């Protein structure tokens, strides 16, 4: 087993394990902090998939931006309501949870069957791309290529997404503003 493979298994184990902890934990703050770990492990997986720029973006935007936002929202919504929700959840522990667990497990089995039927390594376009020498080699530097593509091939989606981001931020600021008392 090569070192890369070993790293992949470690990373995916950390990602899945911390995600399960996030789902199972009763303590909201603890689960938010475990979500940090999941995101870091996912960034490691992106590096192993030879997408270093995406990994850095993941760390900057997800870990630096989204998680801090979530923590803020958690601190701004009051503590007593969260406690009330937890107490209530402890009373009727399971019927709801078992049903959703069965749903998720069945969906997982379906996805696994599909994945094994798909057999992604032998897809036609993947084989063609390997044959045409179009796959990323481990020693390649992709960041310049991404920058050039962003300004040429994908210029329109880039502009659209920047306008959408601006609209979303203005909308979020408008929504979060305190209402004037009438």
């Amino acid at each position, binding site marked *: 087993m090569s070192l*890369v493979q070993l790293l*992949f298994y470690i990373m995916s184990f950390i*990602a*899945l394990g911390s*995600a399960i902890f*996030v*789902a199972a934990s009763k303590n*909201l703050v603890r*689960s*938010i902090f475990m*979500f940090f770990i999941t*995101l870091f492990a*996912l960034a490691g*997986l*992106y590096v192993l*998939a030879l*997408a270093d720029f*995406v990994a850095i*973006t993941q760390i900057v*935007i997800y870990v630096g931006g*989204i998680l801090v*936002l*979530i923590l803020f929202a958690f601190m701004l919504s*009051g503590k007593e*309501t969260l406690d*009330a929700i937890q107490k209530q*959840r402890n009373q009727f522990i399971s019927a709801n949870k078992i049903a*959703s*667990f069965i*749903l*998720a*497990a069945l*969906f*997982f089995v379906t*996805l*696994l069957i599909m*994945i094994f039927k798909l057999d*992604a*390594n032998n897809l036609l376009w*993947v084989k063609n791309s390997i044959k045409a020498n*179009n*796959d*990323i080699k481990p020693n*390649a530097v*992709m960041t310049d*290529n*991404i920058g050039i*593509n962003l300004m040429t*091939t*994908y210029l329109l*989606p*880039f502009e659209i*997404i920047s306008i959408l*981001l601006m609209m*979303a*931020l203005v909308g*979020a*600021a408008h*929504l*979060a503003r305190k209402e004037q008392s009438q």
Partner: protein
Amino acid sequence: MITLTDFLIVSAGLFCIGLFMLVSKHNAIQILIGIELMLNAAILNLVAFGKYDRFNNGGQMFALFAIVLAAATTAVALAIILNVYRRYKTIDPAKVDKLRD
């Protein structure tokens, strides 16, 4: 050599954990985290397949777009959650069942 199937299995696992959180939780913030997990599973797939496109970088590019979109979604969703908390004093989506007037 890490194969594509390994990545697909990991992302299927993440997606199902996200689905479980989405269905079973009684707290809007935890539901939001579930949605983020599902989005991350999708991004992992994009990145894994993007390995086979060196010249156009289609997969990695749209993974970047998806990350930015997730940021926008989260900002708006958290603003909505704050508003809901201010109005209803709870963030359990099952209890938010009244219109404005």
